[in-house]
């Protein structure tokens, strides 16, 4: 049985508490690359992930990390025999590594989805597509997030 994200979080917390870091935190402030890897493995399992087929359109220099437009396109004929089953988007440094899972089918016609996301910092964004033959394909993009000069105090 694969480790769920919740189990992983408690596991990670335990490791932190038992490690050399003197501060006990309830939750890591940002997703570590290990958390990103675990989040990806929760979706992909042990299957190999190949690079290619997936295109991630995201501004290389983001004007505000609170609302970042993102489009994922997968090269696929989208037929009954050869189509994209799902698209999964992850990030490296937000408090949580998951962004979204999109479930498609052969009737989708085009393997393309778009949404708007939050990026807490300059970081890597990863998109993975699961095809109908259960192979996984990925792309990773580095995004630079600039911060607004005059931010309001939160109240």
């Amino acid at each position, binding site marked *: 049985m694969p480790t769920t994200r919740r189990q992983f979080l408690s596991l990670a917390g335990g490791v932190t508490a038992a490690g050399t870091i003197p501060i006990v935190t309830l939750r890591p402030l940002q997703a570590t690359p290990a958390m990103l890897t675990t989040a990806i493995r929760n979706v992909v399992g042990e299957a190999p992930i190949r690079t290619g087929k997936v295109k991630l359109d995201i501004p290389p220099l983001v004007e505000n990390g609170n609302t*970042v437009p993102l489009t994922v396109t997968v090269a696929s004929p989208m037929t009954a025999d050869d189509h994209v089953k799902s698209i999964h988007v992850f990030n490296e440094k937000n408090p949580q590594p*998951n962004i*979204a899972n*999109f479930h498609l089918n052969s009737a989708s016609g*085009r393997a393309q989805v778009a949404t*708007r*996301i939050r*990026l807490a910092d300059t970081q890597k964004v990863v998109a993975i597509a699961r095809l109908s033959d259960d192979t996984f394909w990925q792309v990773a993009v580095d995004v630079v997030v600039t911060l607004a000069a005059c931010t309001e105090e939160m109240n």
Partner: protein
Amino acid sequence: MAALINVPAKARRGDVIEIRTLTSHIMETGFRHTADGKLVPRDIITSFTCRYNGTEIFRADLFPAIAANPYLSFFTVAKDSGTFEFEWIGDNGYSSTGSASITVE
């Protein structure tokens, strides 16, 4: 509160059409604190589903990294005239629905 749904009113059979939705929701991450240090509880939309004449054609699982007022764009093949139904489900029992009709010739 409002939702914006964009589906072409007409399409030819077999056309690949784009569907866009934008809905009002705060998408509170659950990672923010108030000035006095209290955690603001998570309040997000967790799931979006689109059905075309009753059949699910697209579904999304959303996480706190989705921006406020979630925007989604996706595609489907125009098959028959009929109705698209949209459903957003979230924390604290949140649920909202919308629909749009299409004429396929």
